[in-house]
């Protein structure tokens, strides 16, 4: 029993699971086409990397390695802002091409490529006038 618990210590199984998560995310990234799913796959890969880092940091006796934890914390915040930016790009792409997938060629020439504010918020001119006064 004790031997089993030692073999399955968090410092061993969590990094292994992290590696599997990374591979799973990679598989999804290659196979799926919808860009939101690809962003999710990238996030899952990132979580796998964080799990490897923190799992290794938690190995052995004593408190875990604070440097690895600080790096992971930095990584999480960077990941969330990159995700937000990527999602904004996906919305923009969908507005231009009508599909949230990567197209093989450049988008049609006649597709509308103007500012989102004109399409989404009709009262723009009116608001501008109000604002100037």
């Amino acid at each position: 029993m004790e031997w089993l618990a030692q073999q399955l210590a968090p410092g061993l199984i969590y990094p292994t699971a992290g590696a599997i998560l990374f591979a799973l995310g990679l598989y999804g990234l290659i196979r799926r086409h919808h860009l939101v799913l690809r962003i999710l796959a990238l996030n899952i890969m990132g979580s796998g990397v964080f799990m490897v880092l923190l799992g290794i940091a938690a190995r052995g006796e004593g408190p875990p390695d604070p440097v690895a934890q600080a790096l992971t914390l930095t990584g999480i915040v960077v990941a969330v802002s990159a995700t937000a930016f990527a999602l904004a790009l996906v919305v923009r792409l969908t507005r231009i091409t009508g599909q949230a997938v990567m197209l093989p060629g450049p988008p049609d020439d006649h597709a509308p490529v103007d500012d989102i504010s004109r399409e989404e918020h009709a009262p723009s001119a009116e608001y501008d006038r109000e604002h100037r006064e």
Partner: protein
Amino acid sequence: MSDLLLVVFDLVLLVGLLGVAWRCLASTDLFRAVVLFITFGLLLALAWVRLEAPDIALAEAAIGAGITGALLLVTLERLRSIVVERRRGQPDEPPDPAGADALLHALHDPPPPRRTFVPALTFALVVGGLMVTALWHQPDAVGLEPVVDEHMDVSGVDHPITAVLLNFRAYDTFLELAIVLIALLGAWSLGRYDRLPARPAPGPILPGTLRLLVPVAIVTGVYILWAGSHAPGGAFQAGAILGAAGILLVLARPRDLPMAPSSPLRLGLAAGVALFLAIGIVGLLIGPGLLGYPPAWAYPLIIVIEVAATLSIALTLVALFIAGRPAGDDR
């Protein structure tokens, strides 16, 4: 007994995590994928707890529950609205090149073609196998924990992770704040918003909840920021909590939300990076080096930087959620 039960907990948790990730990436319905991803974040926070990383769990709680979920759900709604609008054919728009299937494509991804199965599986197996092999053969190392422990008394704070983030490796934190700001600039380059019209709630429940949650969120954010000097917590977690509260306000929008005037907003967004850089340069001039502090001044300087960073992170997250620059900027 307890050790064995902890192993059982770990195994159940990891099986759940891998299963949720797998089903999430195998979904054809995007909404389902997003809900599974939110659950994934919850289980991930439990995993960080088991890896003795309460700081990370705190950040994951704030970001996973408050920000990523809302961001993904709102993105799905935006995609759906765009496709529905195109399908109806706006007068000034050309006919939809994507055809009648576009509506399904907006929120559904058809199962991937068979021919990608074998190469993708092989590639993933090779990469995953290499990683697992490397991890199993990695020699045991002590890591940097003793080094950090040795220098704690000059760091100015009592919590090792805050010491690493804001003193020993301040470089990383500074550049990270810069990256968050750059992501926002990227999102701002995509378009602008004039204002977000009010959406009065149909009943008293949402405004009532807001009246409870937003003040508590502000107090909790300040508490977590304060706790960061001696216990798990700090600028990132506090910023994420305050940012989530801001997102809640943007979502509920009890009244018309004119986009904030340009200069105070920009000052707030840049405060973290600017203050960090200013203090870092002063450190370079008076001796300890770029982004270094004299030990006697470390504590107050760290607190000042953390307050500014919290404000910037919170504002940036809300602005990234809105994802358009304020209209007032263009003249």
